[in-house]
C-alpha cells in the first residue's frame, strides 16, 4: 500500500457500508483526500474534529470518515456548525457544502456566518450544478449554459462564491480546482489554521450532469479544462479584466485578521459576570 493510501485508510470508517455514492470520475474524492492530508499534516485528533455537511453529493462526504460527523439539512450546515462551535469552542469545526447548499438555499447563513466571523472552515465544492437531483441549474451555473431546468439556456448570472465570501467578511478565502490537488491540500490546511471564518472554494466538474448536458466531455477532459483555465492570483494581478474572462483565479485570495466571535463572546461573559449583584 502506498503512503497516501495508508494515510487515507487511517481516517476512513471501515465499518461504513462502502462503496460510496459518488460517480466514477467525480472530484469530491479528490477534495476528501486533500482534507484528510491537511488534517493529518496539522495533526488534529480525530475526537476534536467535527465534520458538518448539508445535502447533496458533497453532503455525503462526512459519513465515510472517522470524525464526529454531522449530516444536516439542506443549506443549514453552517447554522448547526455555529451551535457546535459556540457550545464547545475546543472542537475544530469543518463544514462541507456544495454550491446549491452554500449560496442558494444556504446563502443567508453563509453571508452571516462570514459576517460574524464564526471560527469554522467552510469547504465548498462548486460544480455549477445540482448533481444528486439530476442536473438542475444552480446559482453558479454560468450564463448561457444548459441544465435540466434550463434546457434552452441559463439566463441568470452566476454567483462567484469566493468573491461573495470576501464581501461578506470572511478572513481567509482560497480557491483551487480538483485538478490541483496539492494546492487544495495547502489551501485547506491554511484555512483550518486560520482563526475565524475561512472559506476554500473547490472548483470541480460534474461530468455526469453538467458535462453531459453541455457536451463538455469526460471527467478527464473537464479536469484538463480546469488546468487550462486556471490562473494564479499572482499572475492574475498582471492581467486585464477582459483577459480574465472564463478564467479561474486560484490561490489565497484573502488572508486578514478580524475579531473572532467566540473570543469576543468571552469578553461579553466577563462583562456580564461583573454586573451580577449590582
Amino acid at each position, binding site marked *: 500500500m502506498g503512503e497516501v493510501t495508508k494515510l487515507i485508510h487511517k481516517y476512513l470508517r471501515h465499518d461504513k457500508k462502502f462503496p460510496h455514492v459518488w460517480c466514477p470520475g467525480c472530484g469530491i474524492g479528490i477534495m476528501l483526500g486533500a482534507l484528510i492530508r491537511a488534517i493529518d499534516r496539522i495533526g488534529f485528533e480525530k475526537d476534536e474534529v467535527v465534520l458538518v455537511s448539508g445535502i447533496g453529493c458533497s453532503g455525503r462526504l462526512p*459519513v465515510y470518515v472517522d470524525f464526529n460527523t454531522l449530516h444536516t439539512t439542506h443549506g443549514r450546515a453552517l447554522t448547526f456548525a455555529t451551535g457546535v462551535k459556540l457550545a*464547545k469552542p475546543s472542537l475544530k469545526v469543518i463544514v462541507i457544502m456544495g454550491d446549491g447548499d452554500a449560496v442558494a438555499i444556504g446563502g443567508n447563513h453563509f453571508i452571516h456566518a462570514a459576517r460574524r466571523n464564526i471560527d469554522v472552515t467552510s469547504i465548498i465544492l462548486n460544480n455549477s450544478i445540482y448533481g444528486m437531483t439530476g442536473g438542475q441549474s444552480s446559482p453558479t451555473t454560468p450564463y448561457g449554459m444548459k441544465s435540466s431546468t434550463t434546457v434552452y439556456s441559463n439566463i441568470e448570472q452566476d454567483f462567484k462564491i469566493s468573491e461573495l465570501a470576501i464581501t461578506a467578511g470572511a478572513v481567509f478565502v482560497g480557491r483551487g480546482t480538483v485538478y490541483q490537488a496539492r494546492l487544495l491540500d495547502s489551501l485547506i490546511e491554511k484555512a483550518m489554521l486560520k482563526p475565524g471564518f475561512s472559506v476554500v472554494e473547490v472548483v470541480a466538474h460534474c461530468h455526469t450532469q453538467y458535462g453531459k448536458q453541455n457536451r463538455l466531455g469526460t471527467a478527464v477532459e473537464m479536469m484538463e479544462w480546469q488546468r487550462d483555465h486556471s490562473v494564479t492570483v499572482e499572475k492574475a494581478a498582471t492581467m486585464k479584466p477582459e483577459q480574465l474572462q472564463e478564467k479561474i483565479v486560484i490561490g489565497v485570495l484573502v488572508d486578514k485578521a478580524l475579531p473572532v466571535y467566540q473570543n469576543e463572546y468571552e469578553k461579553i461573559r466577563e462583562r456580564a459576570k461583573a454586573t451580577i449583584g449590582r
Partner: protein
Amino acid sequence: MERKNQNQRKKKSHQKELLLQGNEAIVEGALRAGCRFFAGYPITPATEISEILSVKLPQVEGTFIQMEDEIASLGAVIGASLAGVKSMTATSGPGFSLMQENLGFAIIAEVPCVIVNVMRGGPSTGLPTFPSQSDVMQARWGTHGDHPAIVLSASTVRECYDITIKAFNFSEKFRTPAIVLIDEVVAHMREKMILSDEEEIEIFDRVKPTVPPEWYIPFEDTPSGIPAMANFGEGYRYHVTGLTHDIRGFPTSRSDEIGPFVARLHRKISQHFSEIQRAEFFQTEDAEITIVAYGCVARSAKRAMIEAREKGIKVGLLKLVTLWPFVRSAVEKVLQTSKFLLVPEMNMGQVSREVKRVNRGMAKVLTLNKVDGTIITPEEILNRITEVS
C-alpha cells in the same frame, strides 16, 4: 428567640418572591433546568425571552446568539445540544413555521432541545400582539413525516417555570425536541411567583454511554427505546444524519432497518405516555358539564365554573397541561361522567377535534371558538353553559 429569628432570615434569603411575566418565568425555568445555550430571532410576542437570556446566559458561562432567522436559530440549537449543552430557542407562529424543517431533523436524529412558541393569531403575520391558541395543530403536525411530539402548555406564570423545566427534562430523557406552547396573555401577564433555592426540583440530564467507544451503538434499540447519547468531542465518534439510519447511525435504505427505526421513534414516547401526560381535574366528580381548557382560557374557565356552581349548575374543569401526546385517558374519564364537554378555545377548533375523536358517543361535545384577538371571558363560557343546562 434570637436563634429563631436567624433561622427565619436564613429561610428568607433562600426564598425569592418575584413578580414575573410568563416569558420571564420561562427564562428562570430554562436556567434552572440547566439551559446554557440560546439562539433566536426577534419576534413578538416572544422577544422578552431572547432579551433576558442575552443578559443572563453570559453571566453563567452560557451562550446567547441572535441568528439571521429562525431556521438558523434551531440549527444552532441542535448543534449546541450535540456538543453537550442544553439548548433552547423561542419564537412565535411564523418563526415556528420556519423551524419545522430542523424540528424534523431533531426528531429523527434524536437531539434534545426545547422550542418555545408564544402563539399569535394567524395565518401569516396575523395578530402579532394579540392572544391566540391557533398553533396547537402546528405544534403537533407542523414538521413533515411521521413523528411523535411533546407539547406542554401553561395557564399561570408559575406553570411557565414548571413546564419549561419539564420540557428540558422530557427532551433530555426521551432524546427528542419538546415544545412549550403558550399564549400571549400568559406570556405577558405578571403574577407573583415564589422561587426557592431549597425547593426540590427534578432535573434530568441525558444518559451518556458507559461502554467503551468501540462498543457504542449510537441508535441502539433498548427496552426504553431511548439510546444513550454521546456528546461530540468526548471520544465517541459517530455519525448523525437526517437520513433514515441504522443503529450505528449510517444511512440505510433497507426496509428491515427502516421499519423498526421509525417504530422506535414513536415507541420511545408512547410507552412513556403516563409520565408525559399532565392534566388537572377541578370538581369533575359530580360535574354534568366539564370544561376542557388550556392556557389563559383555563383561567376564564375556572372562574366560569365557580360562578356556575354558585348558580347551582354542576360544572367541572379539566385543565390540560400536556397538549401532545393528547391526554386521552383524562378526557375519557370526564367523557364517561359528564353529559356535556365544553371546549372553549381561541382558535377555530383544534383541541376540540381531539376531544371529539376520542368521544365515541359518550357525551355531547360543545365548542366555543373565538378568533378575533380577544380572550374568551368567564361570562362567555358561562353563557354557553346556561344555553345547555
